[in-house]
């Protein structure tokens, strides 16, 4: 499809949206929804006019706008976990109304408290979406007692951990690099600390977490499998407060408060681990060792007049690993500057400038040998997102963005002489989109949109072509600033919901996602040295098409929520390595890549209990994920490593007394698809394992039980503190992290299992004042 044709389609689509514009005596009620205690904006909260079918949800900045024919209405405001409120309005002119939920409602006499709207999961147009309540997630027991939203998300259907205790994840059979991880709109390129055991997300600094496993809205682009949209807290607009925690291996501290009451606020949060200090106390062997990470989150915002608001958010995280003569460090930095502008009661604009980077450095100084190594990716991103509340039946979102990527590959220097390394690369990734959330009838609503994404490589670059023996056969030189090799793709996104009755619905979605960046990783677990490369004339962008269909039903006055979803995902241009590829600092890395196809399909069941003393969920996923490369397994389809046939999570929280909560999780999954030896031979005097097909074997099944207990010591308005005890792997299951095959001392060949974590108790003290 050529570009001008695409333009035509876009213009046509725009006209379609405007088709239903005309209506005479309509007025608009608009404003922000906030938490009454902290002044934090409520995202995706619901606003609807009772007795009508008219309703909207707030956008990512808590803004809503509802247009109705003139008349008297009861407007209901609701948000999960809060009591809803409703008030009467005589709509004979445009009304601006900011609403605070969860506060002392008796002061407002026009307001009535109603039961919260709990059937949103059934009625909204979102399919394959996972939302996480950060407050609830804190009760769930985790490794080392270190709260981690990524690990909680892994307990939901369709999302699985990349390795034992790991924070990396796979979504619906996709690869680990196919997840777009956003922190306040900034992409986080390596969301792991400490070789993957912790994520970069410090729960104390977070407000909202949402994951799209499918049905990805048109405003998001750039990754093939999923979007994890994490938003930081704005900071309390009403009063100053501090919270934190002391754990066995880390501590956290957060301060937030108003810069000027109800005008602006600031939040600063920090976390640092001290595993090395602890280890040094235990044994002299660790005396030289430094091994820690830290995270710093900062967010500030200020309202400028009625219509404008500025936000600044920043994140800095770093891992340090070193001894006397060896040092290794890596980390992400992100910075987001946002400007919210309300043109009028219907049109809302967010403009963001985003900087994001990930880099690592490695240094060895030993006996006159001086090795220095570093690499990174640096992003500059400008974007605009408009929300247009056209009428109660149509909410239009449109916008654009441009990311300038700079890729600095591994630069290796030996005794201060730089070695022959891969070249720096530059690329511009662009996107424009438009989408409409339309209520077609009482029962049928749709969210449809289109995204046009592009990627252009930018010089200076010396592009190489390779023959079968991986030798360079042709070189093309591009001058600095030259654009070359542009890709453009249209990505349709459609979600539809049909209400069967007030408590059940059927949903379906189709979406195409194009990914222009690839993470080069040859190891089975990710490492900090894995680097990103852009698509090029040789490396084609990965294209994912996903169809999913789901059935949603709530029982027993929304006490129980049940859903079943099935999906099929098709992947084009997936990337893998040739056997024996040299990935580290190889200037001709592209020659070592092979390109193939992928497919993943499955069915996901989720049953939640949301009310009462006992809450929790049970999830089960039955799935398959396969890849096909001409160069691997003779071109046959083979299981992807993350192809876990069965995946079960049981999560339960029980409120014993108002001060004591007990929580437990049990997980089970089929072992990863791996390659085990099927024989052996001897070469150069030593044993070599003989392999047959790629990923034709299975690791042993994985299962584990974790237990947690939260004991609230004091809970008053002035001071809150609790003690959290947790036991990871409570029945001490020896789950195989890896299995190695070798000769033992007596010359016998045998299989050895490494179980990384046995039973691990931990304790943490949390406070807030």
């Amino acid at each position, binding site marked *: 499809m050529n570009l001008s044709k695409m333009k035509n389609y876009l213009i046509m689509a725009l006209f379609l949206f405007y088709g239903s514009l005309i209506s005479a005596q309509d007025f608009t009620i608009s404003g922000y929804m906030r938490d009454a205690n902290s002044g934090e904006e409520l995202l995706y909260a619901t606003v609807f006019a009772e007795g009508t079918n008219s309703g909207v949800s707030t956008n990512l900045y808590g803004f809503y706008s509802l247009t109705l024919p003139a008349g008297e209405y009861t407007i209901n405001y609701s948000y999960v976990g809060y009591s809803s409120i409703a008030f009467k309005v005589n709509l004979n002119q445009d009304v601006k109304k900011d609403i605070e939920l969860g506060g002392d409602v008796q002061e407002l006499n026009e307001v009535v408290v109603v039961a919260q709207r709990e059937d949103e999961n059934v009625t909204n147009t979102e399919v394959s979406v996972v939302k996480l309540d950060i407050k609830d997630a804190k009760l769930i027991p985790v490794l*080392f007692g270190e709260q981690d939203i990524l690990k909680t998300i892994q307990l939901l259907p369709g999302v699985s951990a990349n390795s034992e205790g790991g924070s990396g994840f796979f979504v619906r059979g996709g690869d680990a690099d196919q997840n777009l991880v956003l922190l306040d709109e900034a992409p986080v390129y390596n969301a792991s600390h400490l070789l993957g055991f912790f994520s970069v997300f410090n729960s104390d600094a977070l407000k909202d977490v949402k994951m799209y496993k499918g049905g990805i809205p048109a405003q998001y682009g750039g990754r093939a499998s999923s979007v994890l949209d994490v938003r930081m807290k704005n900071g309390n607009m009403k009063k100053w407060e501090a919270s934190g925690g002391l754990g*066995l*291996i880390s501590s956290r501290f957060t301060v937030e408060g108003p810069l000027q009451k109800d005008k602006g606020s600031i939040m600063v949060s920090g976390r640092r681990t001290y*595993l090395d200090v*602890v*280890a040094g*106390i*235990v044994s002299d*062997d660790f*005396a030289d060792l430094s091994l820690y990470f830290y995270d710093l989150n900062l967010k500030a915002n200020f309202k400028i007049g009625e219509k404008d608001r500025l936000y600044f958010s920043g994140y800095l995280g770093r891992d340090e690993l070193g001894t006397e003569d060896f040092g290794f460090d890596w980390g992400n930095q992100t910075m987001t500057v946002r400007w919210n502008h309300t043109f009028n009661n219907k049109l809302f604009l967010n403009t963001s400038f985003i900087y994001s980077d990930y880099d690592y450095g490695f240094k060895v100084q030993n*006996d006159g040998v001086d090795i220095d190594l570093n690499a990174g990716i640096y992003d500059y991103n400008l974007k605009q997102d408009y929300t247009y509340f056209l009428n109660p039946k149509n909410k239009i979102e449109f916008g654009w963005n441009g990311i300038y990527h700079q890729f600095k590959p591994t630069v290796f220097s030996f005794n201060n*002489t730089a*070695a*022959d390394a891969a070249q720096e690369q530059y690329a511009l990734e662009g996107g424009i989109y438009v989408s409409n959330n339309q209520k077609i009838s009482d029962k049928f609503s749709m969210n449809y949109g289109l995204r046009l994404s592009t990627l252009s490589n930018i010089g200076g670059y010396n592009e190489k072509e390779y023959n079968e023996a991986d030798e360079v056969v042709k070189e093309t030189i591009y001058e600095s600033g030259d654009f070359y090799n542009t890709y453009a793709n249209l990505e349709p996104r459609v979600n539809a919901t049909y209400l069967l009755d007030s408590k059940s619905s059927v949903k379906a979605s189709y979406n195409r996602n194009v990914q222009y960046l690839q993470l080069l990783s*040859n*190891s*089975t*677990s990710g490492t900090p040295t894995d680097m990103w490369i852009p698509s090029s004339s040789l490396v084609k962008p990965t294209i994912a098409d996903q169809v999913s269909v789901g059935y949603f039903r709530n029982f027993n006055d929304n006490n129980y929520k049940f859903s079943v979803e099935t999906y099929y995902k098709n992947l084009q241009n997936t990337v893998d*390595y040739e*056997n*024996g*590829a*040299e990935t580290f600092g190889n200037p001709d890395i592209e020659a070592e890549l092979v390109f193939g196809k992928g497919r993943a399909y499955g069915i996901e069941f989720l049953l939640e209990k949301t009310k009462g003393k006992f809450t929790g969920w049970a999830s089960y996923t039955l799935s398959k994920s396969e890849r096909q490369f001409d160069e691997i397994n003779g071109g046959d389809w083979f299981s992807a490593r993350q192809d876990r046939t069965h995946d079960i999570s049981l999560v339960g929280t029980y409120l014993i007394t108002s001060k004591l909560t007990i929580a437990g999780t049990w997980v089970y999954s089929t072992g990863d698809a791996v*390659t*085990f*030896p*099927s*024989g*052996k*031979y*001897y*070469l*150069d005097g030593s044993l*070599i*394992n*003989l*392999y*047959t097909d790629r990923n034709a*074997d299975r690791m*042993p099944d994985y299962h584990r039980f974790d237990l947690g207990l939260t004991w609230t010591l004091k809970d008053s308005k002035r001071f809150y503190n609790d003690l959290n005890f947790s036991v990871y792997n409570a029945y001490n299951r*020896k789950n195989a992290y*890896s*299995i*190695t095959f070798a*000769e*033992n001392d007596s*010359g016998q*060949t*045998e*299989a*050895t*299992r*490494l*179980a990384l*974590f*046995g*039973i*691990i*108790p*931990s304790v943490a003290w949390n406070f807030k004042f």
Partner: protein
Amino acid sequence: MKNIFIALIGILIFTSCEDVIELELKDTTPRVVIEGTLNMTTQTAQVIFTKSNGFYDATTSVSVSGANAVLQNESGISVILFETDPGVYIAENVVATPGEKWTIEIESEGVSYTAATTAPYPAILDTLITEIEERPFGGEIEVRVFAEWNDEAVVPNFYRIRPYQNDTLIAQSYNLIDDDFSDGDKITTPIREEFELGNLMKMELLSVDKNYYRYFLELSSVVGNGFNSSNPYNPIGNFDNDALGYFGIFSVSEQEVQL
């Protein structure tokens, strides 16, 4: 209280464990494995012809006897290798000159396996530098060794170092080196293996051809198992007809030091 705290930490860090498990593995039809070498220094050509066996089978290799092995250089001189032990075929007095192309052909059970490679330029192991160092903690004495030699300029050269202690090969890895960073210069490389005072240390510097180097490089990426390993596969050398193994030419230069 403090003791409890420390005990807890101890548990945290040291809960990992390794144990031997019984794991059923698939069996596969035996594969042909040929290790063909031409040692330019001793002028000996050798072929070790075996077949693979099951992973849990006895730890002896399965020799293949009765094969015909012939070595030929680019000017048409051919040498026949004779079976001296089951599966071991040898020819003496084979003179190879640097840059000369050699082909080996082995025929067994009606299938012939062919591989070719080019003789490398021999380097001479120049110096062995030893440093005696006392470790700051525990006070252990450590001997660090560096090997030094001159690299031939222009042509790409490949090396392998084989360290011996009291005449026992103590290599922990294949110790492969190329001259990417030091073409035509003096190469100084630290030896990773540990030596003890009072022992006889011997170092062999093998100048190897490109096929030999590539094969062992692939081999080293699959024998390193565990945390960071690549996807396992069978390294493929320069033999045709699906034979595992390689045909390589090398020269040896050695030095000994009494520590």
